[in-house]
């Protein structure tokens, strides 16, 4: 199993370590609910160094990425990022990722830990068949790079003290708190440089930091110290999962795989069918016209029951009740206090309010399709 640059820090903090995507990662420190609520109410700090980083550069980087990714990278100015997907020719998701334009001729892709090998192979294969292949370069920076996420409504109160501005490239802000959602900027820390983006996977305001691996522990400690008086807590993958499930963000391997399209997953907003050809476009266009045969829905349990969990059978309700498939993601929602999840259902059963049943240890418990996201920040 691989270890991140923060392995020793997690041990010192009493983190409980588990295997995730080939990495030994903290699932929790004090407890999932405690860490989850810290992120919703104040702030949480996550090690996301298991995520992969790929740098794509060169005069043809934009053209290469635009025929490989589903979203339109041409809409990105330097210092901006977008959620996007990478599909095979059948429109199936090879990965979902963030693409940032670091500079006019340089892009950073943040990809899933479990997909690094497949993604890099796919990118290299696409590049080999690209007519301007001499003008673009793909570099897997995952081993040299670490990453942190600092998330929650109070992060904006202390982030600037950790990264004194002004930014030296990207979006040229004076300080990180001036970044808007999906913007990123490079800040200087002594001799080193780190990228800070206003993004996250929790549904809260927050930032993600991409830095050289050897700098990560000092950054981690710096953030923990700066955030201490603002309620910042280290948070593990357990809370990361419950937070993203509440706001219905997909997790590759659960909601997405190579046999599932972004349209089925409800991610059509991130598929620019109107742009020039890209991998999967023909299949996705066809599916857009015919309509997908399955749709990802969110659901809530409607009576007291055990929490729904990934892989539990999902049933329709009524005289013609049948097994629809399995729960893709499921958990007890720490914010809502009920069982929640996501699953694929036939389009006819995708309307909010549609009753479903989740099979828990041989017994079926009532649930209902619910609007996405399942959790919204109170206003």
């Amino acid at each position, binding site marked *: 199993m691989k270890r991140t640059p923060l392995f020793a820090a997690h041990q010192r903090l009493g983190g409980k370590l588990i295997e995730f995507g080939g990495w030994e990662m903290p699932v929790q420190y004090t407890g999932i*609910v405690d860490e989850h609520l810290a992120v919703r109410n104040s702030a949480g700090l996550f090690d996301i160094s298991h995520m992969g980083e790929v740098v794509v550069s060169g005069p043809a980087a934009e053209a290469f990425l635009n025929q490989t990714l589903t979203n339109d990278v041409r809409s990105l100015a330097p210092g901006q990022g977008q959620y996007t997907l990478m599909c095979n020719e059948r429109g199936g998701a090879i990965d979902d990722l963030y693409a940032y334009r670091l500079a006019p001729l340089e892009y950073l892709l943040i990809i899933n830990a479990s997909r690094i090998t497949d993604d890099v192979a796919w990118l290299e294969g696409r590049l080999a068949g690209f007519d301007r292949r001499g003008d673009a370069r793909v570099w897997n920076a995952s081993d040299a790079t670490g990453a942190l996420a600092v998330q929650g409504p109070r992060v904006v109160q202390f982030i600037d003290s950790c990264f004194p501005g002004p930014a030296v490239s990207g979006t040229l802000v004076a300080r990180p708190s001036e970044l808007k959602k999906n913007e990123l900027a490079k800040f200087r820390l002594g001799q080193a440089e780190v990228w800070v983006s206003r993004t996250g996977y929790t549904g809260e305001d927050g930032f993600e930091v991409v830095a050289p691996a050897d700098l990560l522990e000092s950054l981690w400690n710096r953030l923990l110290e700066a955030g201490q008086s603002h309620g910042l807590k280290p948070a593990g993958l357990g809370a990361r999962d419950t937070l993203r499930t509440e706001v219905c963000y997909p997790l590759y391997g659960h909601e997405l795989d190579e046999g599932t399209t972004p349209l089925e997953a409800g991610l059509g907003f991130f598929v620019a069918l109107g742009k020039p050809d890209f991998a999967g476009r023909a299949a996705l266009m066809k599916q857009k016209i015919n309509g997908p045969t399955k749709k990802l829905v969110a659901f809530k349990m409607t009576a007291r029951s*055990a929490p729904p969990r990934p892989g539990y059978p999902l049933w329709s309700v009524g005289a013609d009740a049948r097994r629809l498939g399995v729960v893709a993601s499921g958990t007890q929602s720490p914010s809502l206090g009920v069982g929640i999840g996501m699953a694929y259902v036939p389009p006819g059963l995708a309307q909010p309010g549609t009753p479903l049943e989740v099979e828990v*240890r041989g017994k079926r418990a009532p649930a209902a399709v619910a609007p996405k996201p399942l959790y919204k920040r109170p206003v």
Partner: protein
Amino acid sequence: MANVPADLKYAKSHEWVRVASGVATVGITDHAQHELTDVVFVELPELGRKIKAGEACAVVESVKTASDIYSPVSGEVTEANKAAVENPALVNSEPYGGGWFYKVKLSNPAELDALLTAEQYRAQIGG
């Protein structure tokens, strides 16, 4: 350090037993609830069910996982703790009190001798 009351018997699988007049009350230890963290759901055996020592007869669920509870003793279930079903957080806050799981009328009291003492259980959990 986990609380391990001296007057109880323990199973290696982290259940405790308190015996009075031939009836055993069963719950999970402070160490177990601490390892599980936030208990969100408890499923208890039905009244009248005859259970054997070592049999999985209840389930405790945290946010992340579902764990079987193995009965430390054999007998007939005489009571299940409705309060813990209604408020699973009791398992965390009062593992030896309001967070008990069920009671059984012992069919083989000799089984108690095979269980761990507080001292032995403390040694097992390393503290």
